[in-house]
Each structure stands twice: as structure tokens, then as C-alpha cells.
């Protein structure tokens, strides 16, 4: 058991209704499982902002755990979280 701090960026803040949230994690919980917890907590609108609702695929974006950068398209979503980690969900966007 432990807790992580999740920081939201860009339009994910609007969907979550907050800039950051403290989330309880199980022993050995992975990034992927944390995302699942978040989508359950923040609902369909939040989920549609990180996943394509028609394909169910993750939008490509970076998740930072501390300073480690994990990409939804290439990175290790099975990365295990530890108590006290700060997890940042960055903006899923191409273009700019």
C-alpha cells in the first residue's frame, strides 16, 4: 500500500477538474493500472482525452514517473510504482 501524487497537464486538467490528485496504490501497482484507476475515477470524458474511443488505443503521450519518461506508444506501461512517486500525465497532441 502507498500513495502517489498524479499531476495533470493541459486539457486533462479540465477533464479531471483538478491539477493534481493523491491516489492510493496497491503494492507493485503498475502505471497501466494507475491509469485504469484514474479513468474510473474521472469518467468517460477523461478517458476520451487519453484514449481513442473508437479503437481503445492510447493516444501517444508521455507519462513521467519522477524524471523517468514513459511513452504510451513505446514505453514500459508495466513500470511499477512506489510509494511517494510523482506521476505527470503530459499532453497527448500532435502538431503545434
Amino acid at each position: 500500500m502507498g500513495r502517489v501524487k498524479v499531476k495533470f497537464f493541459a486539457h486533462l486538467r479540465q477533464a479531471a477538474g483538478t491539477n493534481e490528485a493523491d491516489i492510493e496504490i496497491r503494492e507493485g501497482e503498475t502505471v497501466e493500472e494507475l491509469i485504469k484507476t484514474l479513468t474510473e475515477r474521472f469518467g468517460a470524458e477523461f478517458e476520451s482525452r487519453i484514449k481513442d474511443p473508437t479503437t481503445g488505443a492510447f493516444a501517444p503521450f508521455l507519462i513521467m514517473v519522477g524524471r523517468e519518461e514513459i511513452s504510451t506508444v513505446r514505453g514500459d506501461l508495466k513500470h511499477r510504482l512506489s510509494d511517494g512517486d510523482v506521476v505527470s500525465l503530459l499532453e497527448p497532441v500532435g502538431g503545434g
Partner: protein
Amino acid sequence: MWTYGGYAGRILRLDMTNWKSSTTPLTKEMARLFLGGNGFGAKILYDEVKPGIDPLGPENKYVFAAGPIQGTMVPTAGRSGVFTKSPLTGYFFDAYGGGSFGPEMKYAGYDAIVVEGRSEKPAYVKVFDDNVEFKDASHIWGKSTYETQEILRKDLAEPKAQIACIGPAGERLVRFACTIWGARAAGRGGNGAVLGSKRFKAIVVRGTKDVEVPDVEEFLRVVSDQYNRIKANPGTGKALPTLGTPGVTTTNNQLGILGTRNWQSEVFEEVEKISGEAMRSRLVVRDKGCMACPIYCTKLTYVKTGPYAGTFDEGPEYETIFAFGSNCGVASLEMIARADRMSDELGVDTISAGAVISFAMECYEKGILSKQETDGLDLRFGNDAALIQLLEKIGRREGIGDLLAEGAARAAAKIGKGSELYAVTIKGLENAGHSPRGMKGYCLGMATGTRGGSHQDARPTAERIGKSDRKILEGKPEYAVGTQSATTIQDSMCVCRMTEGIYGLMEITNEHLNIVNVVTGMNLTLPELVDISDRIWNLERSFNCREGHRREHDVQAKRFMKEPIPEGPSKGMYMPPEELEMLKDKYYDLRGWDKKTGIPTKETLQRLGLTQQAKDLYK
């Protein structure tokens, strides 16, 4: 329908010296070999602009060009480009803008409009379908780009006309002056100064002709499929419609790659004050889309209180927030909106304008420029009032503004005293707001790009979202080639960068191919489309090499090859010259360019059918 769908089939020429116009047919060969937009611009300029000429002299030419999709409902078809020899870089330069100008040009019956020569007195040109008239522009010379458009629309009683024009900055040959249509800018490279040198104030275009595609049913099938995917994609369907490009500001800062105080740092401690989130809640009054665009990333903003109250702006975009905000140490979105609107009205590129100001601020703080030399302006980083005053001076070439209007590289050469390190430019073009130090592939792609300090040749996106690991060197020559190839095709079609996640971030894909084929009916294959991209890229490179460009010019800004990022999540990252040189070797191999000179090899040119270029470069 012309031979192929999408095209108008004609090129209009405007001889400004004699106030005469003519049209030439677009050839089938030109469409097949160069596709449109970027390709047409490169082809016309290589053939018609002699090497060594002054970009601000009458021998330079300026081309407006659209691709086959303009005028259709392919998503983001509002975009079109302008092409000229840049007064900043001295090389081939392409710049693009959204809105409705490109489509209107097609409805008037032209794929491209070539502006030549120099008018004796200020002029504007009225193009209503086949009717072309040259008119005296003395009543609008000196007017802002917004006033110019309002006056011409009213004078000509044509509220639906699309008007491209220059502002006071273009008239005064500010080297980073831009072309404005609506409130969109074909921003970079100084194309507005080229029009100014021709005393070409504006062009008013109105068209009533059809743009056709070969098979309407098939077209609707392909386009509705793409449209639905754009809507479902979290980036194009949610992120950009909600916050627009400013959404990326906090993300870049979180990664430690947000240019700050003239790139002395890449972490801005006051980022939350200039974020897309803050802009949405404080300033945004309406979402806006360019023609045929479902993404509506444009945000109309209005400042209600404070010293900048009353500012009504289309934007600012991320690049402008970086340029006038973090990179000048300013944490006021309200000032950024004012500076953005002023830049549009003066007709200057916000990226370069912000960069010369941040350059001047660093010189001032380091004691290289005294308060006397800055006309009494206290140019400390973060001084928003001084920034606004300086911007006006630059746009009008007054006082120190006259020096800075030459661009950061030229100004540094004149100032000396080590200020060259603070001019963050590539090939004379001020760097855009994505971090070459923090993204290795983008860094290489910029250094080897046609335009230099632009974020539109190679792209940062795939590294920013982690599709390619931004911190490693492995695979980066391929990254640079891949992203450059994709942008070249996007710019020739011409589709907007906002769709790059749909088309493919790192290579030319079947998505590009399907759209090109369903619009034109050319039935190209993917290898043929890749060849078109390579042909255009090598043609641009040949243009530059003919001007004397060589391997040693493919470098990054000095600061990025010398100073590591000093703090934050990307601390320690930079591009030492020896690393860059190593990457360039591999890049030239992939491109089929001579490693010693950086010139495309004879074989490469011949393979792509660029036989004239082979003759010119290997005399």
C-alpha cells in the same frame, strides 16, 4: 475538371514593374513531379531566380501557391504557402498560413500566383476570376494589415474577398516581416519584406469557379473516414479544440524544454501564468477554425482588465507565448495577446520578433547594450512595457528597432562583443520554440533543414510524445529524414501540421497517398510519393547549394552546441559539435548527399530527374 482533380490548371504572373499580368497553363508534368504548394514554389524559384541576387531586389520573385486539396473539403485544406528567397537566410524559404486565402485563389482559377519585378509606386492587385487589375495603393501604404483589409473590402464592395497584404514592417523592409491574410500569417523568413521591396501592398482575390474531384462518392468515403478519425483522436479531437497549440506550454516546461530568457534556461518558473489552461479560463472568448478544419485550434481572446485591456486577438499560438512570454521572461498572457495582435498589424513574424527582443534583453542584462543604446528602454527580462515599446520600434525601424529589424544574427554581427552567442539562430533564422538541446532528432533535422531555425522542416512532436526517445542519438538521422520527408509532402498537398498525428509523424504513409489520389486521381504509388518528396527536398537543397550553402552551414545555434541545459528535467542535454558531425555523416548518406560538401550527389539528382540541377552544381 483539369487533367487531374483538385487543380485549377493555371498559374498567374504579376509583373509589378509594368503592371501587366499573364497566365500560363499548369503542365501535367509539373503536377506529377512536384504535386503543389511547396513543390511548385521550389520549382518556380529554382528555375527563375538567379543565384546571388539580392532578396530585396527586383530580381527576386515571390510565389503564392496552393496544393491540389485547397478548395476541397479535405480537413485543413484552408492552408496555403508563400515562397521566396529569404532576406534573413539568403536561401529558399517557404511559409504557410491557414484561413481561406489558398482556397479562394483556387476558386479564382489559379494554383499559383508569381509576383515579379518592382513597382515604381505602391500598388495592390485585384484578382476577380479572370479579371486582373493593378491599382494605386498610396491610400493604404503605411496602414496596418487589419486596416488595409477592412479598407479594401469596403472600397471594392467585396466582403467575401480574401486579401493577403503586408503591414508597415514589410514596407520598411524589416527582415522578418511577414504576409498576413485575415488574421493568419505566413510568418517566417521575411517574405513581407520581399513584397515591400516590390512595393506590393496587397492582393485581393475573389473566385467563383468550381474545384472538382474525379469521383465524388469515393472522395466522400475517404474524407469522412479521415474526418471521423480526427474527431476520435484525443489530440485532434479534444486537446487542440480545447486549448489550441498553447496547451503544450506546460508540457514542454514539465519536460524542461521550454525556452526561457533567451534560452539561458528551459524551465520557466511562472509557466502557470502563461499556460494554455490559464488562457482558456481567462482570455478565450470563442473557438475558430480555418477553412475546412474540424480541429478549430484557433482561440479568439479578449483582455478585459489591466494595462492591456481592450485587446482583441486571434491567438496567441504556442510559439508566440514562448517567443514573447517565457523566452522574454514575461509572465503576462495579456501582454502576449497585445504583442501578438501588434505583430499581426505591423506584419512581423512573432517568433523572430520575440527572439530579437530576447536577444536584446540578454545583451542589455550582460552590459553589452547600454540604456543609451536602447533609446532609454530598460530591457530587463520580464519588463513587459518595454517589450511592447521595442516591438513597435522594430516594426517601424525606429531607433534601436532599426538595428534589430535586421534580425538577431545581423544585429549581433554589428554589435559584436561576444553577443553572437546570444543570437539563437540557424542559417540566420531565429529558432522557434522547441528545444533542439532537449530533442536530438529534431536538433539534427533543424541543422540540416532548408529553412534553418524553423520547427516545420524536421518536427519535434514524435520526440515530445515519446514515439522516439528524445535523449538518445540512435536512429536520429532516420528521424530527421523521416520527419522532413513527411513535412515536405504535407506542405505540397498542403495540409496543416495539426493533422500530422493522423497522417503519420515520422514518415510518408498511405494516409498521405490516399488523400492525394482521391483528390487528383493520379493513382500514384507510395514509392512515387516518396520520390516527389525527395525531389522537392533536393531541389530546395540545390537552390541553397547554388547560393553557396555547404556542409559547414548545417549547424545548430552556437548556444545549443556549447552550453548544456543548466537546470530542470533535461539538465545537461546539448548538442556538442562532434556529435552533430557524426549524425550529419549518417544523415548525408541517407539523403544521398556528398559527405564532404553537403551537396546532393550527381546520382541522387539524376535519380530524381533533377538533371538541370546536376549540371548547375557539377559544372
